[in-house]
Structures are given as C-alpha cells and as structure tokens.
C-alpha cells in the first residue's frame, strides 16, 4: 500500500469519527480533503483552540439525530426505552474519546507524513508543500537544482492549472 493510500485511509478514519462529534456541514466544504483540514484545526491543542473546538461540537439532540441517521436500526431498539439516555451518553463518551485519542496519537501535524498528499496537486497549497519538501531534502537538491526544480514546478503549475480550469472553478485551481 502506498503512503498516499495509507494517508487516505487515516484521513477517512478521522473524518468518520469526527462527524459524530463535530457539526461538519459537508456543503461548506469543496471535498473531504478540505473537510479534513478543518477537522485538523478543530483537533489542535491549546486553550484558544479548545473554545473553537467546543463551539463546533454537536449538542445532545444533534448527536442523537446524527447517530440515528447513520444507524437507523437503533431507532426501533431505543424507542421509548429508559436505557436510551445511558446508551447515547455512553456512545458520546466513547466517540469523543476516540476522536481525542486519534488526534493525540496520529501524526496529523507531522509535515513529513501530511506532505504526501501534495502530490495530488489538488490546490495551490500543494505547490508550497512540494517546494518546502524540496528545500528540506538537501540530500537530493543542491541550491542550483532547487532553483531549477522550483522553476519546473512553476511551469507545471501553469500547465496543470490550465488543464484544471476545464474542471474546477478559478479559486480552486493550482496555477
């Protein structure tokens, strides 16, 4: 399995669990990549970010509705059952912990791993990521070849951007 495929799996894993915990309006995001970038911000540590993260968390009703939307088979089980409160409570506690632990242990902020998806050339930040990677790998690029590489990358972005303009809106394309 290539690192790109592994990375996609990891991102999907984070998104699946995050959707239970956070209000993620999928219409707000261009694609799951953009949604993941937003989730990554929500999962950053620090008191400032905690407030932002808390503000985006699902409220009790929203969580219940989402859980039942994803698992309609629970609806029948829980209708009028006195145990439903503790079921939703336990579910919330478990899922919230999963999201916290995923963000704690997965290398979501390690540029070495996250740089891999820049090779998809999905948006403008991909170019910056590739340029940054090239300047990091001094074992491959000496100053002269780094300049040449960046120049080639610029050319690629223009050509690739022209191709992309056939499919994407102007603000999304790479060049």
């Amino acid at each position: 399995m290539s690192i790109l495929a592994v990375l996609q799996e990891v991102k999907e894993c984070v998104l699946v669990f995050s959707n239970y915990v956070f209000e993620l309006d999928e219409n707000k995001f261009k694609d799951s990549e953009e949604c993941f970038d937003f989730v990554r911000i929500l999962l950053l540590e620090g008191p400032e970010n905690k407030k932002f993260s808390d503000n985006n968390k699902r409220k009790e009703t929203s969580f219940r509705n989402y859980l039942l939307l994803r698992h309609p088979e629970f609806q029948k089980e829980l209708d009028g059952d006195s145990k439903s409160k503790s079921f939703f409570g336990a579910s919330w506690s478990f899922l919230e912990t999963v999201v916290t632990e995923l963000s704690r242990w997965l290398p979501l902020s390690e540029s070495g791993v996250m740089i891999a998806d820049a090779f998809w050339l999905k948006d403008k930040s991909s170019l910056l990521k590739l340029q940054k990677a090239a300047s990091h790998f001094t074992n491959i690029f000496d100053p002269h070849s780094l300049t040449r590489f960046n120049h080639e990358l610029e050319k690629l972005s223009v050509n690739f951007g022209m191709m992309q303009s056939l499919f994407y809106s102007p603000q999304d394309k790479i060049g």
Partner: protein
Amino acid sequence: MSRTLKTALKPETKLRFEMTNFLLQNNLPYSLADRLSSFVKKLVTQHTEKDLLEYSVNRNHVSRIASDFIGPSLQKDYLSKLEASAFSISVDEGCIKGNTEYIAISATFFDESNIDVTEKDKLCTKLIALIELEDSSKGETIFDKIKKFLFSGPAGETRAKNCMGIATDHATNMISSKGAGATNRMQKEFSHIIVTHDLCHALSLALKHSIQTFPKEIYNIVLQISSHFSNSPQRTSLLKNLMTVASNKAQKVNSILRFVPTRWSSFYNCLERIIEMKEQIKAYFKEYGNLDEQAYLEEPNLLMLRLSSKKD
C-alpha cells in the same frame, strides 16, 4: 493403504502419495507441493545418485547455513540496493525469548534490479537487520547501532544521502520531546531525514486508550462469556449439544470466539458471535449457569450488547 492398491499404483501416483504424506506429516502448506516437485527434480538432475545418498542435513546445519551464509548474503544484497535507491526505514524494538533485546530495521526501497516487474512493483519492503542491543536500550545506543550498521563504512555516506525518512513507535528512546531519542539524534546528524510516528502503532494506541471509555458492563460480559467457554471444552461441548438439538443438525454449529484483550479487534468479533448465538447462550446459562450468568443476556444488558454490535 491396502497391499493390492499399493502394487497397483503407477510410480508417478506413488510419488504423489509419498509427497502428500510428507506434507501432511510435517504440517506443511499444500501450496508448497508445486515448488517441492520442482525442487526434487532440480536435485535429481543437478546431483549424482551417490551425492544424494551420502548427503545429510540436520537443524544445526540449516541454522548455521542460514545465519552464517544466506543471511549475510541477503543482507549484503539489500544494503547494496540501498546505495542505488532512495529509501526509508522503520525501526522497532523487540524481545526474543523474553530476555534478549533487539532492534529490527526494515527498509522500503526501489529494487531497480528487478526488471521483470512494473515500476509500481519495484517498491519493496525488506527486513534488513536484527541487531542485538546487549546491555542498553537508550536512544543513544540505538542511534549508534543504526548509524554503525547503515551509515558507516565505504558506502555509508551514500546510504545516508539516500535515506529519506524513519518511522518508529512512540517509545521515548525512539522519539523524545527532549531530543534524546534515537531518531532525534539521527535528525540532528542528517538534517534531511524526516522522522514520523508509525501509523499502525499510533492507531493501536488510539484504540487502546479509547476502549477504556467503552461501557465496562458490556466489556465485562463479553470477557466473562468468552472466558467461560474458552477455558473449558466440556462447557463448549454442552453448548454445542444444545445448539445441535435446537437447529435440527441442519445448520452449522459455531462456537464462542476467544476474546483476548491484547488483540483489540477480537472484542468486536467475540461480541458479534455472542449476539449471533444469544438464544443458545441464554438457554445454556438457564440450564447450567448461576444467577449472575443467567442475567448476562437479559435486558437491559442485551439491548446494550445488541446496540454495541449492530447485529441482530
């Protein structure tokens, strides 16, 4: 095999029977049959009858040939490939026979010498070293061992230049916030190397910590039902008898899967099986269990178990 059948068999069929018997007696995989046939043919064509009759090999020979000849030769081959290709390594510490600490180094590289495969399949991962740690497993020691093995000698500089990254677990002797881990030291000396936490270890740790918040009563019920049956062939047999009677012998009779806490995926599999067999387990405990055991699969426990497993 009867005497009549023995004499009637053709030599080719007899050989097939002998080969099959050899595979079965030695618990060898059936898939080995093809390669074993080719190997026997190769032996017969490349060696004289006298050599074959005089030759002998025992486990000590095999162990010595593997460790003194084939192992080093493979290692030399892999190391030379790391001189020709960019590569990354993953390093993990382990223990053999409970008392000897080792570090295992695997490398992922492009095997350009393999011309029979597509570009994509040239990417391969090989275990390239198992290095004994002797008396210390500090970050500094691990760093020294890796450096000596990979980045010293005439080709060491080339390999250091080709090394792109290192993945390790979260052990502090590997990656430390204070900079004393083996990989921190590696990065200090070879600034281009990217260090990252291994994703499998990371996922395992995330789930290990998350399961702590899973409702204890459900966890314990699964653990107790699993232990009840896994430690006793008699109980399993009683359960199977009940199931055979209930299913009129027409259905496949399953057994309770073993739940091993250190294998976190076994919890889900065991829970699924319990839900699948809930009626039989209830009947079993009604017949043979105490009051606590009879309550395992009664409401409200059953509802929580069913909701946790999503299976009914």
